[in-house]
């Protein structure tokens, strides 16, 4: 009888150990999901290419970047065909950077309005979400080299008789919107620009893009980053659907650049910043960034100004 009992006990213990291993693996994924983090799988450096350092990361081996995938297209958003996946041009850039560093990229979901505070609390290595340099951010943040040149775009209803004479190639300024109500996202560069125009009534939206408000005539126009207008209005990029009820008018204005934002008081920030800059420099030169921007229909000649070839 005894050997029988021992065998049972042995099988039971093996089952428990196996269960623990499986549960441990599942639990890790569960924790990652609860934290709003989305990993993209471990990466290995491309053979023959000198890897870039990965010292200073908050969690060794994991490149954690803060961004908001809600209303985040084309930067970072849930794939409409498979919402388990994150897609977007910034997701692809982060994947390419992580490849060069030989680490796993992980998006840390954070409401756009809270990115500054989350960065200050070191909840990720840096912000990478259409981030811009502002005087206020200069006080607490360090900035990477630019990775995209963008501008601001006016979008109106396609059938609005007040804008019939204008198209995307017209040369316009914000004076065309004087006396009107214009919406944009709170925290967007456009909000700061519109603040300087008391002739325009500005409505600020949190966590929501105001395209439907323009279509429903609750707003006369919206004014926001050109990649947003290109994706949501022109349907540029994977999964994009053109919205014929809207049209961009005027060439993009107020040109600026996107950068990665780092917490100045984080002692490792400068190290990771240097590594990100090295990676971006390589992606600019080897054609990876151009390829990503071409896929997302964001490529234009202005990108040469920041060294992208």
């Amino acid at each position, binding site marked *: 009888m005894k050997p029988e009992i021992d065998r049972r006990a042995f099988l039971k213990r093996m089952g428990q150990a196996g269960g623990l291993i499986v549960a441990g693996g599942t639990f890790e994924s569960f924790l990652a999901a609860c934290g709003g983090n989305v990993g993209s799988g471990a990466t290995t450096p491309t053979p023959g290419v000198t890897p870039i350092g990965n010292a200073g990361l908050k969690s060794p081996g994991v490149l954690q970047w803060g961004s908001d995938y809600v209303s985040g297209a084309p930067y970072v958003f849930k794939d409409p065909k498979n919402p388990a996946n994150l897609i977007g041009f910034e997701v692809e850039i982060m994947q390419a950077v992580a490849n060069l560093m030989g680490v796993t990229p992980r998006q840390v979901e954070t409401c756009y309005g809270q990115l500054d505070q989350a960065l200050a609390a070191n909840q990720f290595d840096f912000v990478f979400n259409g981030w811009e340099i502002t005087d206020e951010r200069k006080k607490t943040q360090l900035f990477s080299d630019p990775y995209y040149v963008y501008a601001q775009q006016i979008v109106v209803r396609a059938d609005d008789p007040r804008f019939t004479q204008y198209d995307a190639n017209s040369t316009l300024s914000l004076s065309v919107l004087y006396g009107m109500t214009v919406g944009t996202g709170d925290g967007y560069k456009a909000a700061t620009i519109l603040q300087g125009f008391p002739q325009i009534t500005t409505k600020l939206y949190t966590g929501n893009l105001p395209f439907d408000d323009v279509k429903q005539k*609750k707003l006369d126009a919206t004014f926001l980053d050109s990649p947003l207008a290109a994706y949501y209005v022109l349907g540029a990029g994977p999964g994009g659907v053109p919205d014929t009820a809207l049209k961009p008018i005027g060439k993009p204005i107020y040109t600026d650049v996107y950068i990665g934002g780092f917490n100045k008081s984080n002692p490792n920030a400068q190290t990771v910043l240097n590594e990100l800059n090295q990676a971006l420099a390589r992606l600019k030169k080897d054609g990876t960034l151009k390829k990503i921007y071409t896929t997302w229909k964001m490529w234009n000649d202005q990108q040469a100004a920041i060294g992208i070839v």
Partner: protein
Amino acid sequence: MSLIQQVLPFFLIGARNTLIYCFVSFPLALLLGLLLAVMRSSRIAWFSSPAKIFIEVIRGTPIIAQIFLIYYGVGAVLAIYNLSTFDNSWTAGIAVLALNYAAYEAEVFRAGFLSVEHGQTEAALSLGMTSGQNFFRIVLPQAIPLMIPPFVNDFIYMLKDSAVLSVIAATELTTVLQFFVFRNSSNTLPLYALAIVLYLLMALPISYVARWYERRLRAAL
């Protein structure tokens, strides 16, 4: 301190707008809630079923989904008739708060009515009162003091829930807070503290007045 002085006027406008949203929405929610409670208590299924469905749907769905439905869904229908400007952040915000809280207030009313012993109704009817007289003279006066604490609770919840209206560009206190947090990202604590103090200043007097009124009503009974 200079930051507080600089932003205070804007925060006060935000607090005023929060109060407007709540002081307009809550009475509407009470009226609709009373109607729903009466409907739900009815023995006629044509009255009770719609009330039950409304209450369950509203309580079982997030308020942000209701906001988008009223603001964009109803707005899209109104846009066909060129009336969508009437569905703005004020009207949609007040409608959503009123409809949402009506479902909760209906249950408060129902619980209040049920808490008055049935024997009182029997006594009133045996004295020759009509059912209307019984409701307004016997049941309601006894039920109201019991309902005041949950009403006050819900009003304070509404003060805070109104913050969700920032998604449709409503300029209430939290929207103003977010606006300045973006522009002062290196020094946000005084802004959060100011918003908390203003919410407290709005909520505390309401609690005290409600307690005083409840004591008066109980004393009168």
